[in-house]
């Protein structure tokens, strides 16, 4: 729950519900971008995702570094990615 996972925003598809399609660890899932509304999120942005919500905008270099350190976490990271894969936010 505490692992922030970086994801790349692919598409904003439901502005009423603040939903965006994001590429996270190679899978595309819906996340909520309501909490970043003031900063404005556009396709191509990298965001740090916690429990289905984008919490902070980050740059691509930071996203790659964060992913590399997450991958070193082994099982905890694998579990988190599996949880993201099973998520079906609508």
């Amino acid at each position, binding site marked *: 729950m505490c692992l922030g996972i970086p994801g790349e925003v692919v598409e904003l598809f439901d502005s009423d519900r603040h939903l965006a399609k994001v590429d996270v660890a190679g899978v595309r899932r819906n996340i909520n971008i309501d909490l970043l509304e003031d900063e404005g999120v556009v396709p191509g942005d990298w965001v740090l995702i916690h429990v289905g*919500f984008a919490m902070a905008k980050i740059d691509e270099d930071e996203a790659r570094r964060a992913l590399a350190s997450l991958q070193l976490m082994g*099982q905890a990271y694998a579990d988190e990615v599996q949880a993201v894969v099973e*998520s079906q936010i609508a």
Partner: protein
Amino acid sequence: MRFVDEYRDPAAARALVSRIAELAGAEHYKFMEVCGGHTHTIYRHGIEHLLPTSVELVHGPGCPVCVIPMGRIDDAVAVAQAPGVIFTSFGDMMRVPGSEGSLLAAKAKGADVRIVYSPLDALRIATENPERPVVFFAVGFETTAPSTAATVLKARQDAVMNFSIFSNHVTIVPPLRAILESPDLSLDGFIGPGHVSTVVGQLLYRFVPEEYGKAFVTAGFEPLDILQAIAMLLTQLSEGRCCVENQYTRCVSEEGNPRALAIMNEVFEVRPVFEWRGLGFIPESALKLRPEFASWDAELRFDVPGVRVEDPKACQCGEVLKGAIKPWECKVFGTACTPETPIGTCMVSSEGACAAYYNFGRLHRQVAVTMGGSR
């Protein structure tokens, strides 16, 4: 420097380790890393063995799984066993032991307990099962509380009336204050939490240097980040100053995420008091739903026993969380208490100090001894 070779930039790591040794000199320094993610990084990368013996790291209470008291798990199990309920939880919470078993055990006995990644998944389950009450077990610091709050707003907007929240959200400042007030603790500074600070920002921590005279450096999660934060803490102390500094500017700003904080404050209010595992009752340290969201408050909709349960006598999670003892100094560490059969919460979460130490630390200690190291 065996571990350094695994780092992204071994040369930078070596330079930082030398700088730390030089700054520390002959003095003894004790720093607390607040966040469980940092604890994990420290053990995973053997950082304790790179540091001079004069720099000691103690592991703080910043793992939300580890600070949930047994009584709240019992309450969660009671709600999960109420007729017709679908109880949803982050996977991390499933194995945390209550006095009569975990949520996983309740599930084995027939309760409908489902793991979700997001509170929004819990809300979706509620809309798909309109005839059944769906409860979300909300835990975490300000990292996750805004997400729960946004989900409650969505439930209100869509009038999802079979959905409710069992809130166990906690806030980061009160436990820091409790630790700073603790008479038996001698800390020189804090490695501040990374992700929670993306929400709360840096200004909030000013009381640490201003009221308690301790240094505070917010850090990222790479081993280099931690080493750099330690060097920054030592630099402050060697220059005779203490302030709030930010090593993790890549993600953390001065003011945090104001929109996330506003949504959190719209939905939640501060509880008068909340029990923390190991730290006891801390005033104004947790969040509950405001009265206007009573329809989505599981504590009002269900019979929550609310019984206080003493932590198991053998378990010393409390001392570990306060940094008074190291995980391996606990009587049951690695014998009766293991990640497979945890007695205490610190052994459950992969970010708990005991689990992190169990998985990585023992090995590193052995390597250090074999190599003629001092620990």
